[in-house]
């Protein structure tokens, strides 16, 4: 079984991004970048399937600029067999990305495709579902557990109010939730070794897919901030303050 994992390079989750002074976009110049956290879970799950003998090969792919090499090296250092950079010049939107990934799936012929459930920059959470749609594959989104049984992938999904388990006929698309696993730490020697590995680079335009933006960014702004209130000295003071609010019945 071959597994394809898609990873995105995003602003590190600890960083509070700033807005450009002209309000045209966020300013991520010089900001610490890293692999989208959910995508680390996706890689980890693929590696575990390989280590348990169920999978034979783990290929990671990232769409973006040559800067994305760092997240691909991270994936190689975790243990991925092969990394592909799909170069695309513009900030790519989910449907366009899904079309490019579909082309990669057709080329690589994986039995299982694992993505993160969402990106922490755009917070869209669409790409896995879109890719599954374009391939007419079954989809198992927000996975917190995954099991291969014969020609099926059993996925436990985190849904509002509980969990749900479904079986997908392979090939299938799964999107990883944070609770799917705990991604391994990358050891320095592995990172050094990964530096020497070759990252295959493909020009996104080779596929003649129209990846033009369909969503135009008109403006970015700060959300209205919550104001910090007051500190109370005791439980009694807290209660008397709360009781003074209309509609709060304590």
């Amino acid at each position, binding site marked *: 079984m071959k597994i394809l994992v898609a990873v995105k390079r995003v602003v590190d989750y600890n960083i509070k991004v700033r807005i450009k002074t002209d309000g045209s976009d966020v300013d991520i110049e010089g900001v610490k970048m890293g692999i989208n956290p959910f995508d680390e879970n996706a890689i980890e799950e693929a590696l575990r399937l390989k280590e348990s003998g169920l999978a034979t090969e783990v290929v990671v792919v990232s769409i973006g600029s040559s800067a994305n090499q760092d997240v691909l090296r991270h994936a190689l250092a975790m243990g991925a067999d092969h990394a592909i950079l799909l170069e695309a010049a513009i900030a790519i939107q989910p449907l366009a990305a899904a079309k490019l990934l579909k082309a990669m799936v057709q080329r690589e012929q994986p039995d299982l495709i694992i993505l993160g459930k969402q990106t922490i920059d755009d917070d869209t959470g669409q790409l896995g579902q879109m890719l599954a*749609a374009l391939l007419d594959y079954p989809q198992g989104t927000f996975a917190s557990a995954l099991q291969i049984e014969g020609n099926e992938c059993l996925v436990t999904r985190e849904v509002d109010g509980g969990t749900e388990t479904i079986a997908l006929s392979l090939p299938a698309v799964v999107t990883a939730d944070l609770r799917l696993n705990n991604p391994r730490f990358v050891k320095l020697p592995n990172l050094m070794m990964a530096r020497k590995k070759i990252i295959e680079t493909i020009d996104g335009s080779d596929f003649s897919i129209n990846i033009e933006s*369909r969503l135009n960014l008109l403006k970015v702004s700060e959300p209205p901030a919550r104001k910090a209130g007051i*500190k109370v000295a005791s439980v009694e003071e807290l209660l008397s303050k709360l009781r003074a609010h209309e509609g*709060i019945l304590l």
Partner: protein
Amino acid sequence: MTTLILAEILNDHDSQQLSPSALQAVAAAQFWNSPIHLLIAGNNTASIAQKAASISGVERVIHTNSDHFSHPIAEDLANLIVSISHDYEVILATHSSFSRNVLPRVAALLDVEMISDVLEIKADNTYVRAVYAGNVLTTIQSVDALQVLTIHASSFTAQSLEGDAEIVSIASPAAFGKTRWISEVRSQSDRPALSAARVIVSGGRSLASAENFQQLLSPLADKLGAALGATRAAVDAGFAPNEIQVGQTGIVVAPELYIAVGVSGAVQHIYGMKESRIVVAINQDPDAPIFQVADYGLVADLFEAIPALTAAL
């Protein structure tokens, strides 16, 4: 122009109900000033369709009954929506794990870039949505002829129930076949649902065990008629079930009163609770970031403050 709303059916203690978020979806759909149709897919939906028909502003309720919709999977729902999509210029739902599973699939099948979790509709094709865990707002304009979107329920005021829509029953396409529903585990709780609760008591990693989490927070929640919430750290540590995680990866809540107990206030957590009307934080660290979004902060050891608060109620 006609708008199609995908409504969600909730399985609640063996009975089925229309998700109340449908009322907010209809409110959002009013923006387009065009007829609104509401789609319900299940296996025994007559009474749910009746209820949906009473939502003010809905012109038509379309329902379909089929065995394979008793536990609907995204693939079947997407194929159903696509089968009737030619009648619509807008397809929307409230942002939930249900719609997030289905609508991106619909959008891709219809060759549309989808807009997720819309906070405000500015124009027929222009929306405000949050990125970077709610730290930045973007205004985006879609150039697609068809708009596929999810809306942020708490940003829209629910419609009233004074409508009288026609109810139309349609056949559904054949089952997708490559996905098999196996089982579900629903939380059995007598507490209000997090999404609808007026008061939420939320606990963090500092509760230190599942026993503490229950023994300290349950009595308080009981007295307040509150739902329980948790941070990711508390869920990952096994103190609380995953479905009560509040935040970027969990559920977004907007109660009247949110009491954060031993919660540090990471951006990913704040994302899920900052729309609460009144926020109370109880934390022993006076510099904890949660205090920056709290109306009332109490610097105290939760193991003393929570029993005292519960006793004082």
